[in-house]
């Protein structure tokens, strides 16, 4: 059984910036030295609603990127979709306010030790952690291609600076309002067949992750995906966020996606059993 991220700490962070980007909010938090522990793929759990809120659980957000600057110290960037009352509350926090965070949490994307051809696939706000990841991969000499998809253009998150870190970037929208019409999964098959990709890193809706896993099945392509399951605690103590995962021996366990994930090996996740209980043959 795995352990909670050893860097995880619980602290107050200051909102340094909060600006709208398409349908998202780009929120920058001052987190000081904690940046040193943050890896691409990790997430943060944030208390929402203020004092006397009826929302008692934290909300999870992928760490989009971390940076250190002379003026602000260590900072962490999040890309937040105003979805329900918790995320909307976060998006309404003004500069200077404090938020209570626990970070970094969960597993990180595995970084290859030698240069490989990496394909980064993001759905909606799922692209957030991929730009930070791209920078790391680039620094390791990898070729980094990126595919981003969403239902509509306003849900594509692709910042200018981010684009510099990738060799290529293609955008797909289901309504054709930005980039090409269609889904990200379509070109992936071509790239796999062409053997022009060694590792796929993905982050986005579970349906997209599952579809990619099906494409990489029976190929040599490694698929590291960042899953998104509803989480009550984010720190491994509640068992609400589990996914059926097969280990090397073939045994299926219900692993906590908050500490054994969010980054998991796509070929081990038993996508067809998500939302079900495996045959009770433990």
């Amino acid at each position: 059984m795995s352990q909670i991220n050893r860097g995880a700490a619980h602290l107050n962070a200051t909102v340094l910036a909060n600006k709208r980007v398409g349908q998202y909010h780009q929120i920058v938090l001052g987190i000081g030295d904690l940046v040193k522990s943050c890896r691409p793929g990790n997430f943060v759990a944030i208390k929402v609603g203020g004092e006397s809120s009826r929302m008692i659980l934290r909300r999870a957000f992928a760490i989009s990127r971390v940076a250190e600057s002379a003026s602000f110290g260590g900072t962490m960037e999040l890309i937040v979709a105003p979805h329900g009352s918790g995320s909307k509350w976060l998006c309404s926090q003004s500069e200077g306010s404090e938020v209570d965070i626990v970070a970094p949490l969960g597993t990180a994307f595995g970084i290859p030790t030698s240069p490989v051809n990496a394909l980064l696939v993001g759905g909606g706000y799922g692209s957030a952690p991929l730009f930070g990841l791209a920078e790391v991969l680039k620094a390791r000499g990898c070729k980094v291609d990126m595919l981003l998809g969403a239902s509509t253009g306003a849900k594509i998150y692709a910042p200018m600076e981010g684009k510099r870190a990738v060799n290529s970037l293609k955008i797909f929208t289901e309504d054709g309002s930005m980039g090409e019409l269609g889904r990200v999964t379509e070109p992936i098959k071509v790239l796999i067949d062409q053997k022009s990709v060694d590792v796929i890193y993905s982050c986005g809706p579970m349906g997209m992750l599952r579809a990619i896993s099906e494409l990489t099945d029976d190929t040599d392509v490694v698929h590291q995906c960042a899953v998104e399951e509803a989480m009550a605690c984010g720190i491994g103590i509640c068992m609400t966020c589990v996914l059926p995962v097969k280990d090397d021996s073939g045994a299926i366990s219900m692993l906590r996606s908050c500490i054994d994930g969010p980054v998991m090996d796509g070929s081990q996740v038993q996508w067809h059993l998500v939302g079900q209980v495996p045959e009770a043959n433990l």
Partner: protein
Amino acid sequence: MSNFDFSTTLGNAFFNTPVFTASGCASSGKELAQFFPLKDIGAVVTKSVMNKPRYGRPTPRMAETPSGMLNSIGLQGPGIEAFLAKDIPWLVEQNSRVIISIAGETVEEYATLARKVRSVPGISAIEVNISCPNVENRGLVFACDPDSSRRVIDGVRKTIGGEIPIIAKLSPDVTNLPSIAQGVVESGADALALINTVLGMVINLETMRPHLGGKTGGLSGPAIKPVAVRAIYQVHAAMPDVPILGMGGVSSGRDALELILAGASGVSVGTASFGNPHAVIEIQRELRELLIAKGFPTLKSAIGYAHREASE
């Protein structure tokens, strides 16, 4: 101040402080150890363990509700053997006081579990969870039936002997809680844990079906605190000499004090840890400060205080 006596007892088990984790809300303690030393709190109550490993319920397993949440974990766990081999030695090494929570599908399973726990060194007490509404046992909950709850405790008592105190954990989803409590105490429970979650349901308005994989789930968190206070008060009134481990919605020292005044000898913190990983240790600190500020010489002098006539 510093020599304020914060200690408490449940049966013959002694605890330096009265604030514990709640079963199922701290896993086996390891994760929370990242946030505070486990030996600083009263005890770690581990997640209810069954005899065999278990997958639990399908996801989604949780839904946030106003000031509360529903869970439907269904007692996922590694089974007692793996649990005793891996989790307990680590906890004992941390100098943490440990209460093992057991859950079974049959009276026999409880007895079997008790037998396996009995011989483990370093255990302060055994909590017998007869109240989990999630177990896939035709929906039948031991704690809702006076007879089967008695039989479970009876079986555990006979197996355990007098060595480890037995804490029977009850469900509030019954018509007459004091009578269930009476029954398990007569069958040999040394203490009672009150309350387990309240049975609830959320309908998902996207799918327009029950949101949880297990359809119903257990309601916990501040929403149920008034139910917990009432349950503790009622049972303490009926059996003032039976120690109660109180729980249900405690998320501050003030909440913990409410439960203690109502009659709890100790307090378990569950759902609050999900929102605040430091909840247990912070609540413990706040409770201590409050008791001192209110002028109580010891924790024990506050237990059940709300039952005294106002003139006393």
